[in-house]
């Protein structure tokens, strides 16, 4: 077995086989689940690194892996180029960090179900990873469903309103996935193929771009992924679902699910179709950019109005989706580069923020913003990492948030879309206010726990305030800091990453 050649499949087999190993281990001894999960995600991350290196070294920068050895349009293939190799690596790294982090949160929030939790965790990773790697439109749907189903379950395992919000998510998610499937069906009916590269070739050769059904198929795929990524006005399901999920789940789902949907959108827009089609005969591109601006505004301002930390972060996810969709629809290379870079950057940022929120919840037993009071004294390391992530969200150099905004704004200026530029800057300002409010509370005020009606009487948690520093355990801090430092590193080395991404962007062929 040529291990280098097989790296792409190993990347996905690690968590896949791991899921079943963990499931079996969970039947025997629940304590084994955590180390096994870490082990398998680490293996996947290692293979991911190998894959990335392979993509870097390959002539033309594309590696293809044929499942079952069948030629692509007949069999399924993994197709990794500059766009998705980086995203796949981001996915496994996020999964690894969350896996390391999950030790205490899973044990405390979903006690007794660790085996199941980690099985679903790994299968969610498989799903998301597969979406980012596959070159087959239908295979993508299967991966989409694996990730969706496991995320439904992971979310519904939460307390409070989790089940209720999960149900809305299921309904919306199913509509989204079905629309995607329908769109793929339309492409299949016109081209007879399911392989993305092959579809692109047939569309080109047979001049199918002017066909109504191809256009409508494109539209359905687009609406489908928009639902999945919670793009305004299809975003209503997201905040509740992410808020009431167990904290480990939100840490995994929030950075991955929306970002990967954006990847799918970009892939369909530019690899299956081409810019000429998308911006020529597709839906009006400036209309979409305006929608993206609305998304930024909605996300940022709703976030401002929320007093639950996780709810606030969930709305920020919606705003960030606006950034990326807007960037991709600016119809120029700079904007697209920004959008792709922001997928990576935002994945890490969201991860860091949710990890911090989870650590705060673990120690303070509350998501209310009031619970962050005085935390610089209580949990200095957690808050330090949180502050770095917040700076990245605001867009302060040298964190990566600054550089992605750099490209997005440049793209906006280049496209002459001033609404997008102003929207982005406004949203950054709102982010500044938002995070500053929290940091200020954490820095200036005395530690205090919020009054919550549900806490009274028998349901009250036995929370004892400890004196002095009361920091989260190392297994939580280490991934949190890794993510935060990753933000800075990604910012510092953004040149290298952008170089890599622009290989893809250049192949797209903007005029």
């Amino acid at each position, binding site marked *: 077995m040529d291990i280098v050649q097989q790296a792409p499949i190993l990347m996905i087999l690690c968590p896949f086989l791991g899921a079943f190993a963990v499931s079996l281990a969970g039947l025997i001894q629940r304590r084994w689940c955590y180390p096994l999960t870490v082990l398998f995600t680490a293996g996947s991350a290692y293979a991911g690194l190998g894959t990335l290196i392979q993509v870097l070294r390959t002539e033309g920068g594309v590696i293809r892996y044929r499942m079952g050895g069948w030629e692509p349009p007949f069999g399924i293939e993994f197709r990794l180029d500059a766009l998705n190799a980086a995203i796949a690596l981001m996915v496994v790294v996020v999964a690894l960090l969350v896996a390391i982090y999950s030790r205490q949160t899973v044990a405390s929030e979903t006690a007794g179900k660790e085996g199941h939790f980690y099985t679903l965790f790994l299968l969610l990773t498989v799903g998301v990873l597969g979406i980012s790697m596959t070159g087959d439109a*239908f295979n993508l749907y299967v991966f989409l*469903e694996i990730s969706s189903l496991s995320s*439904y379950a992971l979310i519904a395992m939460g307390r409070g*309103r989790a*089940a*209720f919000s999960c*149900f809305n998510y299921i309904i919306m998610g*199913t509509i989204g996935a*079905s629309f995607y499937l329908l769109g793929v069906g339309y492409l299949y009916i016109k081209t007879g193929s399911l392989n993305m590269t092959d579809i692109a070739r047939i569309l080109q050769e047979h001049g199918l771009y002017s066909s109504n059904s191809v256009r409508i198929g494109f539209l359905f795929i687009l609406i489908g992924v928009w639902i999945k990524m919670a793009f305004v006005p299809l975003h209503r399901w997201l905040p509740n679902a992410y808020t009431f999920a167990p904290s480990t789940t939100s840490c995994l789902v929030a950075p991955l699910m929306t970002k990967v949907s954006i990847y799918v959108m970009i892939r369909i827009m530019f690899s299956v179709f081409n810019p000429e089609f998308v911006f020529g005969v597709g839906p009006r591109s400036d209309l979409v950019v305006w929608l993206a601006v609305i998304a930024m505004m909605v996300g940022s301002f709703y976030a401002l109005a929320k007093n639950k930390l996780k709810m606030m972060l969930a709305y920020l996810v919606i705003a960030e989706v606006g950034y990326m969709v807007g960037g991709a629809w600016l119809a120029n290379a700079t904007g697209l580069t920004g959008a792709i870079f922001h997928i990576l950057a935002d994945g890490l940022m969201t991860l860091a923020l949710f990890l911090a929120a989870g650590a705060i919840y673990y120690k303070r037993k509350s998501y209310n913003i009031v619970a962050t009071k005085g935390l610089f004294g209580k949990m200095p390391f957690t808050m330090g990492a949180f502050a770095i992530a917040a700076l990245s969200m605001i867009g302060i150099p040298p964190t990566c948030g600054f550089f992605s905004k750099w490209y997005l704004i440049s793209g906006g200026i280049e496209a002459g879309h001033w609404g997008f530029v102003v929207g982005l800057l406004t949203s950054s300002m709102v982010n500044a206010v938002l995070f500053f409010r929290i940091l200020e509370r954490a820095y200036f005020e005395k530690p205090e726990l919020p009054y919550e009606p549900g806490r009274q009487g028998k349901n009250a948690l036995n929370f004892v305030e400890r004196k002095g520093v009361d920091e989260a355990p190392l297994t939580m801090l280490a991934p949190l800091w890794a993510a935060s430092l990753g933000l800075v590193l990604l910012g510092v080395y953004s040149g290298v990453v952008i170089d890599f991404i622009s290989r893809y962007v250049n192949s797209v062929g903007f005029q």
Partner: protein
Amino acid sequence: MLDLIIAKFNYWVYIVLMMIGLYAMIAKNNYIKKLIGMTIFQTAIMLFYVSIGAKQGATIPIIDHHGDGGDHGEAAEAVGHAVETAAHAAGSLDPDAYVNPLPHVLMLTAIVVGVATLGVAMAVVQKIHDQYGSIEEDEVLKRIKL
């Protein structure tokens, strides 16, 4: 116009079904009704796919060994081979004789996915019912507000 309707009736059927399902998913208040809508919706898509693969006058996508019916007796096999060689001589099997197998495969996947989604959704509905004592969306919302 009539031509359009008759020649493409399969598409009209699936559109109608799909719209029924979609409407139920969005507009119905009862969670189980929403789920029924979801099932109709997904079934419509399956119908759509499977109908793509249909060919007039074609049979199921299993290569017919002329009545040997899976009996691998030597004689039968010999006959089978003879027929096959003939077919090959004529330029391989006739693609028009069999319906397209691919949509069936795809929809097998979609069915499984549909079952799985439905199951998970049912479990969630049960949990909602346990928590709020109702499966009507407005009542659940009322209870959440309280």
